[in-house]
């Protein structure tokens, strides 16, 4: 069965370049995929902040849809969506009654057996083994891999990498030719969903991340989450205002970085959509 892809809202809107680059590399490595048809929003932070049931039901509907399509695996590039889906899946696993209720709510059968993968897992599984031979333009910069919160935490739900000092992205970036820097803010929070409502907090937290990356000599930040990207890239002006420092370090999605190393046109990877220009 082709891989089911759940894009989520950001990847069709403000972070569409992430989706563009994901598709580019899936195509390059000839990984068959289809989108989850008629998908809905995962509910993000808002749902579990205000309404517990909705917070579980929205991801449940997505899982049910993917299963209806017959997929065994679903790729969720957005870290926030990934986190929501995984956490709902675990809750349903532990609570069969809840699973029954949710199945009824979404009006679809729910097996809940589908494997939910984040972008790093798909890359490690299906791309890394063939990556070396396809590299055209090895990256030649120092990269700070930024994992953020939602990709690695909580460890007992997601458990795919070391919580406090994850390595998977660093390993991939190294294959691409870049030098991953050892730095301290790999998993600190960027401010996440407060980008609109508490921009000051986002600016401070994201600022700390940029400072640490730059001080450890990074020339680019590599991310795998649209929220992190939005905060670190689109909020750059606010960050500079808050910290009183100038930063020209670009923020690149891991999939874009892979695309760059494969020699794919920057436009196709959506690099032109960034607020902070990517000129490395």
């Amino acid at each position: 069965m082709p891989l089911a892809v759940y894009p989520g809202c950001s990847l069709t809107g403000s972070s569409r370049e992430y989706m563009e680059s994901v598709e580019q590399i899936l195509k390059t490595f000839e990984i068959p995929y289809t989108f989850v048809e008629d998908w809905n929003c995962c509910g993000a932070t808002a749902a579990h902040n205000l309404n517990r049931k909705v917070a579980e039901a929205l991801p449940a509907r997505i899982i049910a849809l993917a299963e209806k399509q017959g997929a065994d695996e679903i790729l969720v590039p957005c870290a926030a969506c990934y986190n929501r889906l995984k956490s709902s899946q675990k809750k349903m696993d532990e609570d069969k009654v809840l699973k029954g209720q949710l199945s009824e709510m979404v009006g679809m059968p729910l097996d809940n057996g589908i494997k939910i993968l984040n972008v790093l897992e798909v890359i490690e599984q299906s791309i890394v083994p063939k990556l070396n031979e396809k590299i055209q333009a090895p990256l030649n910069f120092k990269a700070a891999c930024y994992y953020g919160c939602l990709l690695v935490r909580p460890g007992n739900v997601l458990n795919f990498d070391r919580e406090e000092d994850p390595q998977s992205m660093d390993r991939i970036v190294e294959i691409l030719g870049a030098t991953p820097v050892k730095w301290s803010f790999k998993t600190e929070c960027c401010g996440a969903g407060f980008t609109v409502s508490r921009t000051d907090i986002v600016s401070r937290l994201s600022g700390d991340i940029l400072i640490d990356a730059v001080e450890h000599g990074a020339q680019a930040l590599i991310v795998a989450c649209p929220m992190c990207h939005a905060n670190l890239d689109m909020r750059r002006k606010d960050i500079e205002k808050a910290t009183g420092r100038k930063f020209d370090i670009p923020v690149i999605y891991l999939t874009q970085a892979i695309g760059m190393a494969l020699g794919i046109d920057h436009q196709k990877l959506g690099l032109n959509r960034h607020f902070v220009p990517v000129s490395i």
Partner: protein
Amino acid sequence: MSRIGVFICHCGENISATVDCERVAREASLMEGVLYSIDYKYMCSDPGQNLIKEAIKEHNLNGVVVAACSPRMHEPTFRNACAEAGLNPYMCEIANLREHVSWVHEKGDATTQKAIDLVRMLVEKVKNNKPLLPITVPVTRRALVLGGGIGGIQASLDIANAGHQVILVERDPSIGGHMSQLSETFPTLDCSQCILTPRMVEVARHPNITLITYAELESLEGFIGNFKAKIRKKAKSIDEKLCTGCGLCTTKCPNKKIPSEFNEGLGTRTAIYIPFPQAVPNKPVIDKTQCTYYTKGKCRLCEKTCPAQAIRLDQEDEILEFDVGAVVLATGFNVKGTDFFPEYGYGNYQDVITGLQFERLASASGPTLGEIRRPSDGKIPEKIVFVACAGSRDPAKGIEYCSKICCMYIAKHAMLYKHKVHQGNAYVFYMDIRAGGKMYEEFVRRAIEEDDVKYIRGRVSRIYERNGKLIVKGADTLMGGKPIEIDADMVVLATAGVASPKAEELAQKVHVSYDQHNFYAEAHPKLKPVETNTAGIFLAGSCQAPKDIPETVAMASGAASKVIGLFSNSELKRDPSIAVVNRMPPPTYTTCVGCGLCVTACPYQAIQLEDIKDRKGNVVKRAAYVNPGLCQGCGTCVAFCRSKSIDIEGYTSQQIVAEISALLNDE
């Protein structure tokens, strides 16, 4: 033919006020097999006891039932009286008419009836009693002590000073254990080496102590008083008799960059090395994993250098055998490294060290000669942070228990630092201060009040490096959980105290129990703290749980006194109430089918299956054998045996069934 005497006691009026003692005596005299029956005011008094003795002699009694107070009170008294009259003491049983009858029931017919029932029950039991002889096992008066830390040293010296032979086996090239690594010791701040070294030397010189270093227990067989120990003495690659300990070889060895275990990796050593200047024995060993000769086949520089021609590169491990009567386990503990903790950098930062590493920095014999300098660049830290419970009391990432010693050594470390770096700032992040001990609380208060160590109640969430500083993110819970950030030059983690490496392997070898953390289990948490479940094997020091030096030494002396007690006789007398398998000699008759259920049931590993051979030496069957040295008489095996082949002397099925029948068929 049973010839039983029954003796009913009034206990003044304690019994007779509610029980009609005369009637009990009358009824008893009618019981089958009862030849003599009498009641008396005070059975335990001299005239009372004489009454029994005379009756035994006069009527040639072969069984006695005393109906009086609890057997827990006077069973020994009456059994002794019987023995004095020439009757086997185990032919005497006690019916408890006081604690179980007169004191708990009202006066009346039913109460007297109960008393009669109890007497009948014991009369029936006695009919089924057999004379028993106390079990004696010979005792080899030589002790094996495993582990040469302060615990093992103390136990060895105590036993040896009592005049017994001791074999002291140490895994490392030198004795001394962790105490030899310490700088100064709480709560007095006296120098650890100064108080330890004389004892180490005494061990080496003691005529009763055979010290075997660089060695481990290979196997232990046998039982209390009669163990056979095999010791593997690893090849040191030198002839210890010829070596003078001049140390010349160590200066010539080209492999100089090996992290020194003694200095906790903060200094280096060579492949042929004496672990530290005060080592006992003060002679080198060659670390085969690091020596070029062993890894690549060439070098032999040490061999050429040695003026005494003591190097033996072809030396092999030796197996030594000893008969010993008791074993003391004193194998100590270990501390976790800093890589134990993900949020503290997975061991990535050089200047985040363990408490034990700090000891080496603070020690005058250490790599910095006692100056507190940080490992990365040798700078004297201006701000130092101590983190308590780094891995202890942490079910999520570490261990759930409290390591007990760290609160104290943190206070000590902070004080030592402040004494050496007057302008420095010392911070301690802690959750609770556990300083229960004589002068311990006072010691901690001194650190806070006099040396101005800043104690902050809160746990550290994270440590990371920025611009050559270690950023320590903690919180002050006494300020409502206010986050606190300290940019420190050095961080000392009080990492958890854990069991010594391969502790469980040793426990399995000697058959003692251990807890889920691989610390050895004492026989009773309060009343048998130095005994183990296996008779003849004792515990000393931190192999049982993390503990400080005073406790270790107290426990070692306790274990030693148990050993000395055991050695005070050449034979060991034990209560004969132990399990036996119904075997009859030859050709062996037994109903035992060799199923081994009893073997697994026995909590003391007292049962083995053994081959039974006919006269020609052919194995005819396998049957259980109870080792009288190990059996404690709990009877668990009896309940497990389906073929009813094993029984407890004194509590045989026959005896108990007789009791039950007698109780219930009173008409």
